[in-house]
């Protein structure tokens, strides 16, 4: 176990090293701190002196080591636009993104497990076919389009009147297929402060309504994937010897499905799933853009728009760190949960 742990940690460090080299190369080639510090009017000789003084003429490796030493202490310099440490800017935007990801993860887990298990237990039922059909359509809809459709339906509202409105049943049917709108679809309202810069949308009912549409949009990318994955794994487990044996022994079906089969279904789902939850952070960029959700993704796009290089670099490092931590944790948890994994070698 210790050897496995050390190996995984070493791997994680290696990945962080690669990310930091890339991030530093970006900063080194694209950012000009002198330009930002002194502006246009300072003569070239003074610039050169300042450049020398700040050590910007040092070799790449020396400058990288300086960057890395600061990075370890979460010091990435100042944002050009906000004029404050980039880590402060990120910390201010981090809670919004994390809450969005948390809400989506909750939706994904709450929906994909029952649907996936159901469609594996009854693969021929019309409801299962319906879910499978919806899930392939779901895979084909880009997340920003889901978001736009949700906005049209539930924030703006749609009124259809294909049925005669002057008859009672016609008006009723028209009402049924029309939507009112009115759901908030812009920003996160007035989140309740918890401590420091952390404000939460979970504390009030009004805050939760702001979270609904963005969270559904974000969940919609991963939901079809998880449903299909759980279904496929469950179908495979149902064919296995031990399930057949349990059935032959006369154990109740409910017990077989939910106690014996589900356990082994969830093993691969943890590995694939854990990594995918990490990549949800990438999709927050799109979701946050549509809903103007003030999280890290929107901040990152703004930083690109304004060429705020230090902020871009910090975002890359922080998101890289989040990915590396989730991946490592997933691997470790998988090693702990699955007794067949050889902990000294690679997971099976």
């Amino acid at each position: 176990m210790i050897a496995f742990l050390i190996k995984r940690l070493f791997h994680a460090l290696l990945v962080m090293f690669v990310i930091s080299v890339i991030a530093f190369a970006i900063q080194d080639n694209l950012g000009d701190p002198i330009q930002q510090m002194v502006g246009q009017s300072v003569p070239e000789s003074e610039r050169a002196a300042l450049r020398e003084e700040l050590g910007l003429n040092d070799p790449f490796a020396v400058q990288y080591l300086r960057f890395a030493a600061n990075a370890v202490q979460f010091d990435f310099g100042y944002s050009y636009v906000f004029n404050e440490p980039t880590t402060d800017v990120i910390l201010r935007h981090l809670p919004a993104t994390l809450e969005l990801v948390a809400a989506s993860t909750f939706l994904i887990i709450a929906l994909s497990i029952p649907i996936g298990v159901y469609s594996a237990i009854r693969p021929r039922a019309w409801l299962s076919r319906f879910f499978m059909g919806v899930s392939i359509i779901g895979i084909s809809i880009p997340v920003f389009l889901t978001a736009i459709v949700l906005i049209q339906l539930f924030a703006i509202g749609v009124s259809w009147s294909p049925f005669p409105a002057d008859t009672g049943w016609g008006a009723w049917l028209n009402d049924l297929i029309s939507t009112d709108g009115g759901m908030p679809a812009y920003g996160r309202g007035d989140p309740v402060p918890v401590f420091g810069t952390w404000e939460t949308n979970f504390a009030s009912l009004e805050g939760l309504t702001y979270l609904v549409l963005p969270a559904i949009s974000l969940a919609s990318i991963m939901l079809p994937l998880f449903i299909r994955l759980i279904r496929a794994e469950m179908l495979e487990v149902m064919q296995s010897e031990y399930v057949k044996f349990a059935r032959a022994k006369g154990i109740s079906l409910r017990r077989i499905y939910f106690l014996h089969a589900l356990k082994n279904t969830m093993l691969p789902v943890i590995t694939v799933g854990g990594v995918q939850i990490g990549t949800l952070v990438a999709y927050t960029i799109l979701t946050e853009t549509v809903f103007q959700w003030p999280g890290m993704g929107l901040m990152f796009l703004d930083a690109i728009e304004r060429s705020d290089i230090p902020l871009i670099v910090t975002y890359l490092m922080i998101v890289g760190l989040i990915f590396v931590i989730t991946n490592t944790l997933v691997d470790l948890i998988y090693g702990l949960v699955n007794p067949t994994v050889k902990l000294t070698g690679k997971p099976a």
Partner: protein
Amino acid sequence: MTTSTPTAASSSTASRWERFRDSYLLYSFKRDPIAQVSLAVFILLVAMALLAPWLAPMNPYDLAQIDILASELPPFWVDGSDPAYLMGTDAQGRDLLSTILYGLRVSLIIGFGAVAMQATLGVCFGLLAGYLGGRVDAFLMRMADIQLSFSTLMVAIVVGALFKAIFGGATFSTYAVPLLVLIIGLAEWPQYARTVRASVLAEKGKEYVDAARVMGLSSRRIMFRHILPNTLSPIFVISTVQVANAIISEAALSFLGLGMPETQPSLGSLIKSGFDYIQSGSWWITLIPGLVLVVLVLVINLLGDWLRDVLNPRLYKG
């Protein structure tokens, strides 16, 4: 695209057409209505895109044809529409049907271009990693792992942002098509590399490879002439799905403003430009191109599903 795959593999006495006619691929295609409809819709969309200059009522790239007074007209079934503009107009007064046809063209070009790019990179790296093994394998696959753990979208956004910062907005817009092909190709090659490597590992131990090696053929010849043809079916299966992914990636990048400019719109940039007007009630500018995008991606995904069931390669899992 998909139907010619089995005929290209090797040579024998029967003509290509005869072998295709008797193939299992065609047999299962005839029995699968979903695949037939998907292929029909796909061919229709590609034809519409190719014939856009002749089909479209106006040329959206030609500023002289644009009438700003005719902006934000609704499609024909809504009150207040103009019969000259079947699908309505966008905020700049461009005929929406024409911009969609031209946009479909841009999306398809980038989708196929990006897949050609990533297939070239991925097949080369996959062959090298699988055949040579050792350090090369460890290095290439670790790179693929790192990139995949970041999700291809994230990599594409970051590379896109960098290119935009390096070249500047104006140059980026001018060369947007080749740059997007490069960006998406760079972001998604690991999918190919993993699949190819897995099948190369399975092929490497077979006798024909040993025979070729004993004959003293060069590694390059063995990789490309002997092993590669035997790894084609998984490559074709993931290629269909990857075209769909590349089209979605392009749309996502354009939606974020890192893709096609609005003067030369793809489906993604049309959706983006329409999104600004959705609150004022002009839903069609964003939702009609969106619908076209979804249909295009859906039929490609359905074809990919069918192809995977028929060819049934052992795809790299997880």
